[in-house]
């Protein structure tokens, strides 16, 4: 195993590595979900490949396609100290387990007056770009950010994915861990084995002074590309990768925008009542007098994820829209 700045990895292998390390370190960690065991090829994309062979099929279990049963079993086991990592393959499939996630995982600590709590991690993948159409690629994170009791983590690169997944598994609250499918094979900084990344801490992906681009998951890369382009014109954009969207890292966000006095929020979820609306509102509430321009929000088109390639490409906010939004804040 190599470490150091030059080492690269992928989101997919970082997730696998984090699960492997968590299973090795703590006998209470169990992994279950559809197709996760090696007899089912370690997941449809191989995220859990090798884990059942190394840690036993009693700890890494394939389940039937029964999302309520999967999350229910994770909740029940966690109430008495097991640390389940439950996989709900695609984020859209959380819709059939919403009762377990929203009515139970999120609320049992409060409703029991703290007598029980639900330290589970729910992994899921999503993202437009692979031609999966309207029911396999949605970003539904705003629903969960809106729900008290849940934490929502959404890494963009292998190093963050590894460190945040370990933090989710350690955490005493239910964590949703959202993996971007089109980013699975993108090379990025390799994780440092055993190193946790704290939940609720954003990362300044690129420092700048003229405008703050706030994003997470795949759009961080678009924001960085636009920042590099604008830099040639002497416009220095700061790019923040939120990494966690519940709880939001207000301190980092507000400190940055207080300096740059301009902000653009970009995410793949649709704009309407999206996480960007919450961020824009917090910035306006706290920095209204300092702002040089209204906060700009970018999200996908307000329609289901389309199939046809030109539609799918145009659906997601891209570099052009980000650049235009930045220029609106500068004009």
């Amino acid at each position, binding site marked *: 195993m190599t470490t150091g700045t030059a080492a690269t990895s992928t989101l997919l292998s970082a997730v696998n590595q984090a699960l492997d390390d968590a299973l090795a370190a703590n006998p209470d960690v*169990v992994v279950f979900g559809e197709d996760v065991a090696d007899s089912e090829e370690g997941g449809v994309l191989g995220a859990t490949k090798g884990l059942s062979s190394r840690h036993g099929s*009693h*700890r890494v*279990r394939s*389940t*039937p396609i*029964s*999302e*309520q*049963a999967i*999350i*229910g*079993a*994770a*909740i*029940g*086991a*966690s*109430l*008495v*100290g*097991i640390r*389940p990592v439950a996989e709900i393959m695609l984020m859209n499939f959380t819709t059939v387990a919403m*009762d*377990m996630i929203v*009515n*139970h995982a999120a609320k*049992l*600590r*409060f*409703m*029991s*007056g*703290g*007598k*029980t*709590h639900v330290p589970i991690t729910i992994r899921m993948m999503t993202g437009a770009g692979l031609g999966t159409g309207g029911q396999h690629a949605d970003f539904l994170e705003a629903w969960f950010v809106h729900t*008290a*009791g849940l*934490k929502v983590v959404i890494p963009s690169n292998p190093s963050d994915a590894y460190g945040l997944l370990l933090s989710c598994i350690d*955490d*005493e*609250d239910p964590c949703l861990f959202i993996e971007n499918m089109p980013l699975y094979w993108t090379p990025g900084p390799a994780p440092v084995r055993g190193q946790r990344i704290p939940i609720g801490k954003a990362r300044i992906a690129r420092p700048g002074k003229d405008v703050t681009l706030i994003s997470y998951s795949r759009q961080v890369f678009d924001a960085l590309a636009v920042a590099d382009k604008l830099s040639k014109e002497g416009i220095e954009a700061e790019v923040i990768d939120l990494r966690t969207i519940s709880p939001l890292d207000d301190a980092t966000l507000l400190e940055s925008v207080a300096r740059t006095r301009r902000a653009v929020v970009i995410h793949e979820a649709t704009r309407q009542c999206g996480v960007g609306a919450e961020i824009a509102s917090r910035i306006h509430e706290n920095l209204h007098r300092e702002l040089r321009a209204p906060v700009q929000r970018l999200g996908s088109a307000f329609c289901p994820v389309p199939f046809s390639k030109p539609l799918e490409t145009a659906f997601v906010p891209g570099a052009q829209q980000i650049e235009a939004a930045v220029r609106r804040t500068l004009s």
Partner: protein
Amino acid sequence: MNQARSLPDAPVLLEIYRRATLIKQNDDRFRAVIQSGKLVMPYYSPRGQEIIPAATSVHLSDDDYICTIYRGVHDMLAKGVTPRALWAELAGRVTGSCKGKGGPMHITDPARGVMVTTGIVGSSMPIANGLALAAQLRGEKRVTIAYFGDGASNIGAFHEALNLASLWKLPVVFICQNNRFAEHTRYESGTSIGRIADRAAAYSMPGEHVDGNDPDAMWSAAGQAIARARAGDGPTLIEAMTFRFHGHIFGDADGYMSKEEKASAIARDPVVLLRRRLIERGMATDAALAELERGIELEIDAALQFALDSPYPDLAELRRDVYATEIQP
């Protein structure tokens, strides 16, 4: 082991009666207090269903888990939740089982194995599987009971949970308290099969149809299923037939059932019948039972007073127990 042909002995039957009577008298008082206006809440009375958890829980210890539902006060009391913790929670006081933050639909008492009470029909079963999985993974002999009603057998979670429990041979017993109504809908109007117990066959597990109001039959069926789970032989579905005396929600007009049907069920009050049986079998005297009942009445008096004398939770509780760390104001 063949408990099917054996009967509960005198100490066991007396203990079942003690628990059933606690449930009955507690419920009588709840309804009186709600009716008086002293406490206001939606209340789903379990009156009429006392024998099911009373005869089940005598096979369990504090180490065993239950998950129950909004009509679950009987299940909680039978499992050992104290009337004090229960009344204080119903009154929304900080001394309640959940600091007053959950209320009657979410009583939780892990020290007694009462792990989850849910207000969502069907949701006790998937979570019960998880508790059973934890015991299985750790090689513990604990058993988990999932209580639910007949209406819950028509929701997807029931089918997902039974399938998974059977596949993984989980130490769980699914106890359906068939009171013949799903909210206001009569059993036949909402359920496509004559006996819910027969649904067990679809999941390769034993399905037992019993008279849940008969303590001998209920004790025997529950004992067999619990022993089976403890031995690692997997789950059982028990359909325990019963009847609820006070409708879906206390105060509803019962317009969906006939007066005769209700009157005839109340005439066969299972707690009264058990009392008679104890005396007929020579297991207890009328005087001894009267004394037991008086003791329970005093315990409920004290619990009610304790609840009313207790403070409400501090408003800071709105920020506590949402996450492990208190939310900053």
